[in-house]
């Protein structure tokens, strides 16, 4: 693990924002318009200042993120719409990177933006655009490239390691608390730091891991999944690194109270009786107890204890535990609450062996969102999970069946899919296809026509996603 390369180059986010602004302006006005010239002037000012310092600037789109001179640009919430717009423009024109080698003039920018807008409007190929741009030697364009298979595999291996580290850590913590041993918080920080780093670089792959559920070790997988989903949501909300770490650890420990729930209640194969529920409902308080026993009080413990206490409380104060004095639930609790419910509903449990499909779970949660969950956070969550959550079984227009493998925030309806059966229904060894792929007639090769429940057909997601 290296340093997470989140950009600090002054005004990097501002540059991307301004880039999007001039493109948007050029969509409405001609390049002679004052509005365009003013926006372009500001853009030139920012980029030329950077070039003076950095010599050359490479703005690259990798996955969902922009990188400026190989350093990821952290987006501020106020810029996110423009970031998405620009990423969309890159994808539509197949531009993967823009290299600016010298200081730009208004003429250069005018030509470049005009060419880019035209390429988008006329659906020109990247080659046509690159050919045009070859006239401006100080701006070089690179084609948007897919990550090579080998690189992809290595990344997946690394992400998988991070995922399992968090599961094993939770397992270790539960066992240590049960046997009265001390819990190593330094290790928790390392585990979660790794989750946060991975989340920043490979959000979709890590999110995909949460689709894998282990029936036998549900509690540990659940804690790790909730932590990953919470960190992912926290990242979407723009929480800073330290907050993401705190959120990651607090969510990892959210169910600590379950240690005190008798095994026979926690793993009861039949429907839970009222008496069982009475015990289960104590776990938030028991979680606080465990948290306060293993840690000294500090800002983090306070938040983690609140998360343990509040994660089953609804925004309208229904849920449990019932409280005498109502207060607004903590932001972390509201995040974890969404992640917790979503993961629980989509997991197989001892008493409910068939878990819900992700979309079904989201629909149910959506119905109750205003009284139970924070509506704004839930809106972010749905956008994060996507139209086709990772692990969804989909039928394609080619009659092939596949599992959603990786989502793309720009093309929500066109994820990457791992094929599991051919167009005749025969099993095939997971080839990953990108639903954004078009044929020579500029038509999509594959489109999702139906979603199905993979559990209904005993499809083992781990087989394809790990």
């Amino acid at each position, binding site marked *: 693990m290296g340093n997470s390369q989140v950009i600090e180059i002054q005004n990097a986010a501002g540059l991307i924002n301004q880039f999007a602004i001039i493109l948007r302006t050029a969509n409405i006005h001609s390049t002679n318009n004052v509005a365009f010239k003013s926006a372009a002037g500001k853009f030139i000012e920012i980029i030329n200042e950077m070039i003076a310092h950095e010599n050359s600037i490479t703005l690259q789109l990798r996955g969902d993120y922009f990188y400026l001179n190989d350093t990821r640009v952290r987006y501020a919430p106020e810029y996110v719409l423009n970031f998405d717009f620009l990423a969309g423009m890159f994808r539509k024109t197949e531009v993967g990177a823009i290299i600016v080698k010298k200081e730009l003039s208004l003429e250069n920018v005018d030509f470049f933006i005009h060419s880019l807008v035209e390429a988008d409007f006329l659906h020109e190929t990247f080659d046509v655009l690159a050919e045009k741009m070859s006239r401006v030697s100080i701006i070089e364009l690179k084609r948007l490239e897919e990550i090579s298979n080998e690189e992809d595999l290595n990344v997946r291996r690394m992400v998988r390691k991070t995922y*399992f580290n968090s599961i094993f850590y939770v397992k270790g913590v539960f066992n240590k608390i049960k046997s009265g041993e001390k819990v190593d918080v330094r290790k928790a920080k390392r585990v979660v730091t790794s989750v946060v780093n991975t989340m920043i670089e490979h959000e979709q792959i890590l999110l995909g891991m949460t689709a894998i559920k282990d029936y036998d070790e549900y509690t540990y997988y659940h804690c790790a999944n909730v932590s990953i989903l919470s960190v992912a949501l926290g990242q979407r909300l723009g929480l800073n690194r330290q907050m993401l770490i705190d959120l990651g650890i607090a969510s990892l420990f959210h169910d600590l109270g379950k240690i005190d729930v008798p095994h026979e209640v926690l793993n009861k194969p039949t429907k839970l009786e009222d008496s069982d529920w009475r015990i289960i409902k104590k776990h938030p308080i028991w979680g606080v107890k465990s948290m306060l026993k293993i840690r000294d009080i500090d800002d983090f413990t306070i938040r983690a204890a609140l998360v343990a206490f509040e994660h089953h409380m609804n925004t309208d104060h229904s849920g449990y535990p019932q409280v005498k004095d109502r207060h607004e639930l903590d932001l972390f609790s509201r995040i974890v609450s969404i992640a917790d419910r979503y993961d629980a509903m989509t997991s197989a449990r001892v008493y409910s062996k068939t878990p819900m499909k992700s979309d079904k779970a989201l629909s149910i949660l959506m119905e109750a969102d205003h009284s139970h969950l924070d509506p704004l956070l839930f809106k972010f969550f749905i956008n994060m999970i996507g139209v086709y959550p990772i692990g969804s079984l989909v039928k394609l227009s080619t009659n092939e069946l596949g599992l959603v493998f990786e989502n793309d925030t720009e093309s929500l309806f066109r994820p990457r899919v791992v094929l599991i*059966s051919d167009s005749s*229904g025969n099993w095939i060894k997971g080839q990953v296809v990108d639903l954004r792929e078009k044929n020579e007639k500029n038509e999509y090769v594959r489109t999702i026509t139906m979603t199905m429940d993979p559990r209904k057909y005993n499809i083992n997601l781990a087989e394809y996603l790990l």
Partner: protein
Amino acid sequence: MAGTLNQHETIVVEELDAARQVIEGLIKARKVLRMYPDTNPVYRKNLQDIAGKFSDYFNSRDSLVLRVARNDIYVESESVYNNTEKQDNLALLFFKDGIRELAFHKDMPEEELEEFLKIISLEFGRETIEDDIVTLLWQKDFKHINYIADDTFLTESEDEEINAIKGLKQQATDPVDLKKAYEDSLHEQESATSVPIIPLTAEDFKLLLTILEKDSEEKLDTFFGMLFEILYDSERSVNYEDIVFFFMKSIEYTVSSAKFPIITNVLVRLKKIISDEDTDPEMRRSAIKILLFVSSSKMISLIGTILASERKFEHSVFQTFVRLLDKNAVPPFLNLLVDLQSIHARRMVIDALVSLGPKDMPSLIKGLNHSQWYVIRNIIYILRQIGDKSVLEHIAKAAKHEDVRVRREVLRTLGELGDERVLDTIKDCLQDDDSKIRIASLNALGQVDSPSAKKIVMDQISHSSFHERKISEKKEFFKTLSLWNEKDVYDFCIQIMTRKTFWKRSQQHETKACAAECLGMLGNRDALPVLNKCKASRSKLLQESSETAIKRIERGK
């Protein structure tokens, strides 16, 4: 980066030496940073030295890449550090937390280097440090220092992951099931989406910013709210002993953060629980335990540390908190009077004891026997502010204290609170060796404002030894006497003024001059003839005093 060593280049001896110098610098810096504060010249000098060593290396290369092994640090394949000891082993310091490579890059600012040195100088053996080096480096997110860390030590063994994956993949998807899915897909009605994605709007992001802003607010109040909810539920969920312990830990943290308004709220809620008739007896006992803990010597001593640190918090807020404490807080607060040095901190403690003192007067009284004069003086001040006359006799005992500052405080207090019972004490002080005390006694007598007090003053003036006193002191006697604007005082002064003087004339004139001033202060016009007569006295002092008194009477002042 240009100039970085690649595999085919060979590092030259000079560069290895420069790298060794950097390592030595790092080792030295760890020691220096632990010993000296960052304002110390030695600390600053050391920082410059190590920055210089990095500069030397960067003269030939753009980056210094250190590969870390358990007991060695390498540049390329050359060892630049070796230590097989466990103590003070720089390689092991990095290695044990998983760091396998450290790279420093040219143009590294001194601030970044300093932050890095601060991290490696921490005593990681201490339990209070909850972060390891990797986490700390990650948090700092340095731009010119990179690292590569190995996370394998986070899992017990590599097999663990392999076995888990094997377990998860064990039940392979059955092609028959898959065929079934395929067939079903051909017959079921096609429906591609079921989750409506609502696009995020600018308004959503605006609302998000408000939420994030709100999240930075204090969380302790909510946290205590949670603890109270658990306390209400203790009977069923957590035993009382545990919840009392959690309250204590949390209160200790809150006090150490000087968040007194929060503790005040907690105390108010606890008192409500205690006073509520319907409270479960066990819950009440728990609330009392917590309440007593807040007033315990441990907590008051902690408050002392906060006060000594001169952290800023509102005086009124602190006093509101103190008023809610139990009487057992009084003795430890008295101890703070001994320990605290700063005037501001002592002032806070004194004010606290003024509020709290009435709950435990015996402890305050006991404090009057303290060996330190300043403690006694403070306690007398506190008792005076409390204003409980029942302790006057105890205060009076301190009138013989060897320190003049204590005696003066006693007399001020006896004056303000005193009555007939303390007159003998004050009278005795009129004979004190220190003139300030004698004058303080007079002031006290004036404040007691009783006929007996007046009589003491008049008796003293009438005494043959009075003439021996200095003129300034004589003036104070008459000034005090003038506070009783009564006929007997007037007559007494007239009597002195008209008394024939045969011997010790100058001393007698001094007394008369003071009596003249007293008459002036009394303002009775009947005294004018006598004063006019004295104006013609051969004593210049008497002349002037009489003249001043006449003017004063005539102007009606």
